[in-house]
C-alpha cells in the first residue's frame, strides 16, 4: 500500500500543475485537467527514473486509474527481474 501511495506522489511531482496530495490511487489520471501528451512523456520518464522500467505509451491505454498504472509497472518490473 505504501508503495502505491509513493507512486501517486511520484506522479503528482512529475506532472506539472498538480497539487500535492490531490490524487488517489483511484484517480482516472487521463481525465485530470493537466493530462496531455507532455504529461504522458513526464509520466513515462518518471516510471523509467524511479522504477527502472520502460513502458511504451501505447501500453497505458489499458490503464484507467493510477492503481492500474502502478500494477502495470509492478508487473513489468517482475517480468524483467525474472
Amino acid at each position: 500500500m505504501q508503495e502505491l501511495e509513493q507512486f501517486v506522489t511520484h506522479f503528482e511531482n512529475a506532472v506539472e500543475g498538480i497539487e500535492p496530495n490531490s490524487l488517489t490511487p483511484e484517480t482516472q489520471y487521463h481525465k485530470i485537467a493537466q493530462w496531455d501528451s507532455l504529461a504522458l512523456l513526464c509520466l513515462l520518464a518518471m516510471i523509467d527514473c524511479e522504477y527502472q522500467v520502460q513502458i511504451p505509451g501505447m501500453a497505458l491505454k489499458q490503464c484507467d486509474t493510477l492503481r492500474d498504472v502502478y500494477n502495470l509497472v509492478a508487473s513489468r518490473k517482475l517480468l524483467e527481474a525474472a
Partner: protein
Amino acid sequence: MIPLIPPQGYCDERTFVTERDRIFLRNWIFACSTHELANHEDYRCVDIGGISVVLQNFDGEIRAFNNVCTHRFARLQPGQCGNREMKCPYHGWIFNGEGLPYAIPRKPLIAEITPETLCNYRLSRWHVRMLGPLIFIKKENYGEELPEDDFEQQLGDFAAPIAELATACGEIVENTEYRLKANWKLVVENTLEGYHVDCVHPNTIKKLGMAGLTKSTKGADSVVEAEEEHDPARQKGSYFTFSGQNSSVFSSLNPAVSERMDRTYKFLAQRPRKIDGYRHYYIFPAFVIASTRGESFSLQRILPIDAETTQLTSYLFATNGLDDLSKMDLALKKQFYNSAADFVRDIFAEDAGICEQVQLSVGFAHGTGVLSDEEQRICSFHEAYAAAMTDFRPTQTHHQPQ
C-alpha cells in the same frame, strides 16, 4: 505563379541524366555525419545519381572518392557502411587516403604501372568540407580551381545561421534511409511548402499550430499575418527568406506551448542554440536542415536514384551541451527525443505517401500547374533548377593525370 518545371520533367530519364551532370556533380552535397566516420577505416557510401561515392576515415582525415577501382572497375567498398581498408575485393588493390594504389598484388606483371604513371590510377576524388559534425562533398573536376569560399558561396546568406545550427548538433537520435518511388524534385517541393499540412498532416504538424500564409514577401523583416486570426491554434509570424538558390521559412509557435515546454524540459535550458520558433533551411539542390527551438535538428539529404526514385536520408540530432543531467532529466531527455523521432517518422511516412501518389499521375498531367504564394519557395527552387540546367559547362569526367 507559374511553375517552370513541366510535368514531364518529373519522369523523364534523359532529364535525370542531365540533372546528375549539371546539378549533382557541380554542387556541394551533404553526405553524412562525422559520427559515422569516427574511427580509422570507417566508411560510408552515398549514391549520387547512380554514382557511388565512398567517404572514408584515414587516420582521422575524411576523404571521398568514386567508389570504383581504377584497375578493372569493381566496387571498392561493397557495403553501405562499415570499417574496412580500402581494398578492392576483386584483385586486392589497396588504396590510401590520396586515392593512390599503394599495394598492388604482383605489380611487376603490370608493366604500365611505374612510379611516374602511378598517379594515372588515382581514384576520382571529391572535395570534403565539414560544418560541425556535418560532412559535405563536391565532385573534384579536373583542371578546375575551387575558390576558397566555394562552400560558403553555395550557402549564401544562410552560411552563418546554418553553421550555428550545425555546430549545435549533438548525438544522433535517429538516422533513417527512405527509398521513395517519386522524383527527387517532388520530394524537395514537398519540403518547401506548408500548403499541404491541413490535408496530409492533420494529426501531426497541424496540431503544432504553425501559421499558414495569406501572402508572402521576400525579405527577412517581413511578417505575414496568419490566415485565421480567430483560430487559437493558428499563430502569427511566418515568413520566407531567399538567398540565391536557397530559401528558408520561419514559423513562430504557440507561446503557451513554448512556455509549457520550458517548464517541463528544464534541462533543455542549457542548450547552446535557442531558436525562437521553427526554422527550416533549404540549400539547393539536396540539403534541408530544420530546428524547433534549437532542441533538436532534423536534416535531410534528397538524392535521385533514377527519374522516378529518390533516396531520402533523414538525421535527427539532439542538441549538444546537455551536461550533468540528473537521473530524472536523463529519463525526460530520452522520452523527449524518442517522441521527436516518432513525430519525424510519422511526418515522413505521410509525405512519402503523398509524393508517391503524385508520381503515379504526374506523367499524364497536362498544363503547367500553378503555385500559390504559400508555395513561393517552390518557385525559387524552380528558378535555381532552370538556371543550373541551362548553365552547362562541360567538365572532365574521365580520369586525368594529376
